[in-house]
């Protein structure tokens, strides 16, 4: 990467954070903020202890328990292993002087929800977390990516990471989004188009009028699922929408530094003639509400479509992969997506567990009842999202419709806590992964937007929001 010439947003953040080069030719990248949760950190803290190494800059790290936590009866974690993991995080953070939002703290929630909510996430920062959905924070124009536990230990000990630059990919989406189509449909469409390995080795910058017209919540949904397209990080240029969102939040720059920060943030968007290794342009008018039919996020189709036929696959590998998915999902080729009957509805996760998502669901299910054969659960992304929803009366609308109203956490997105699918159960889920067994062994996941999941809860079948009145 040259220091002269036009730069992308990624190039600018990268060069600002370069501490230097090690003798082995690798780069040391400085990390501004490190988010830590209970599942991927205990071994890192143990490693520090064994080597007798301190945490280099404890105030740059913020910790929260989210993956394991119960969404009911949270005073008591019944699973002894989950309990140990959560207690271990409390102990480790105390020992090293790291800020920790405990389970009774209203600020507790999914790590990728609370970072932005608290104003911890800011443009131009480097942010890491032992969690692949760290890409979410890229919505603010921060370079944010998931790391393994060994790297968590490295960041704790040195506040840097060993890294070589990624390639630049730009996906531009232009035009007004059609009725019924929102950010979740957009990112599912993109993943379907480029595949789950399409972004491997790249940072994806999303741009174009459709993207820049999205709220911060919508932008977070897009960047969140960059990892499902194989990219460790997604990026969106910071703009006035970004600054308005951050201003006044607890960890945001205060008045004494606000203007200086905004001036710097305003210099971050990619230069007009910056060079990308890969460019994709999408016209948003070609996008429908999207639903996954298989066991990979790339197995996606319009809600108006049908389950694909393995015979239509271009390669033998793809054919086998479709056959395997259909067998697991219990689906026959040619079935209309809207003929698929559901057992469960899950609304939540770091992809779609924000206040805007809950408001959309409430507007759709207001004065209606969920189908009698369906169990529907709504898990706010954080304690503060929950509180706000309750202040707006959203909880009442949802409960009246038949939804279970839970405490904040990752919940059934990955089913580490008791919220799981039983074998064969079929779920409309606003989360991010439809892998085999992800939401519970034998469980069948259909990823979709909160709007579609809400409409589907009412009808009991996967439903097109555009047909729903």
């Amino acid at each position, binding site marked *: 990467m040259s220091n002269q010439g036009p730069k992308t947003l990624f190039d600018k953040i990268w060069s600002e954070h370069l501490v230097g080069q090690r003798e082995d030719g690798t780069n040391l990248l400085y990390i501004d903020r490190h988010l830590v949760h209970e599942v991927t950190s205990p071994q890192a803290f143990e490693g520090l202890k064994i080597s007798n190494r301190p945490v280099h800059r404890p105030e740059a790290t913020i910790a929260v328990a989210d993956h394991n936590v119960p969404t009911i009866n949270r005073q008591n974690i019944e699973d002894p*292993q989950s309990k140990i993991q959560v207690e271990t995080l409390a102990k480790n953070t105390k020992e090293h002087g790291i800020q920790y939002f405990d389970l009774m703290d209203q600020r507790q929630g999914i790590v990728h929800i609370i970072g932005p909510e608290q104003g911890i996430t800011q443009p131009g920062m480097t942010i890491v977390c032992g969690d692949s959905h760290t890409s979410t924070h890229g919505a603010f124009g921060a370079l944010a990516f998931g790391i393994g536990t060994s790297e968590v230990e490295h960041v704790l000990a040195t506040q840097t990471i060993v890294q070589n630059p990624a390639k630049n990919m730009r996906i531009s989406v232009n035009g007004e989004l059609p009725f019924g189509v929102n950010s979740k449909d957009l990112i599912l469409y993109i993943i379907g188009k480029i595949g789950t390995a399409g972004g491997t080795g790249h940072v994806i910058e999303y741009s174009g009028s459709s993207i820049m017209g999205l709220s911060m919540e919508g932008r977070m949904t897009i960047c969140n699922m960059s990892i499902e397209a194989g990219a460790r990080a997604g990026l969106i240029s910071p703009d006035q929408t970004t600054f308005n969102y951050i201003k006044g939040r607890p960890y945001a720059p205060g008045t004494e530094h606000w203007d200086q920060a905004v001036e710097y943030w305003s210099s971050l968007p990619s230069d007009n003639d910056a060079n990308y290794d890969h460019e994709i342009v999408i016209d948003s008018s070609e996008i429908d509400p999207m639903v996954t039919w298989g066991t990979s996020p790339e197995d996606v189709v319009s809600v108006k479509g049908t389950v694909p036929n393995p015979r239509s696959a271009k390669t033998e590998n793809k054919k086998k992969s479709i056959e395997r998915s259909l067998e697991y999902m219990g689906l026959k080729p040619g079935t209309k997506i809207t003929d698929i009957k559901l057992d469960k509805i899950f609304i939540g996760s770091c992809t779609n567990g924000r206040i805007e998502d809950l408001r959309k669901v409430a507007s759709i299910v207001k004065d209606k009842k969920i189908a009698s054969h369906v169990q529907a659960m709504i898990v706010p992304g954080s304690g503060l999202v929950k509180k706000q929803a309750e202040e707006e009366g959203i909880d009442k609308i949802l409960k009246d419709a038949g939804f279970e109203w839970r405490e904040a956490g990752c919940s059934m997105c990955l089913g580490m806590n008791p919220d799981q699918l039983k074998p064969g159960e079929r779920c409309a889920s606003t989360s991010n992964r439809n892998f085999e067994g992800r939401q519970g062994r034998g469980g069948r996941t259909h990823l979709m937007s909160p709007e579609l999941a809400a409409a589907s809860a009412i009808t009991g079948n996967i439903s097109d929001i555009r047909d729903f009145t």
Partner: protein
Amino acid sequence: MDKFHSLKGIAAPLPIVNIDTDMIIPKQFLKTIKRTGLGVSLFYEMRYDNDGNLIKDFVLNTSPYDQSKILVAGDNFGCGSSREHAPWSLKDFGIRSVISTSFADIFYNNCFQNGILPIVVNPENLDQLMTAAKNQIEFTIDLPEQVIKAGNHLIKFEIEEFRKERLLQGLDDIGITLGYKDKINAYEEDKKNKKPWLFKNN
């Protein structure tokens, strides 16, 4: 970290694309606070039935593949989450190298932190190695020479020099970086002046 120099052994064929980290090690095993003991749970849902009995025809449950040191797998191996439990479980089982046409970035990186060598080959070579694995032909992987030998096949592979050195010497990455502590401190001092809001504690 364990060193990796060369490896000789049987390779298990796993001709599935997009093998994700949930498949490699499902969520219920992420509750551990240790790095070890995960080998028995590797590929849990493919290896065991609902009652916890071994599924006899799954490749890693059959002899000689239950002693495999190498996996040959379909494209985009290790996609999904950042859980380092995936390489920990592979290593605990005895797998020290995975061969595929591509790997997800985080998984690829995590392997090197644990003395596991992920090798990228082209689709034609993957087919040859998959067949060799199915025929139970012994593989030899030579890292210094960057070559896989399996029967008549001699396949060269690429690896970044710094990764190769780290595996060969089993280097402690944090120890190396702490050697640059003065540079890190100097960087922080500079940024405290230029971007003070990043150092303000609320």
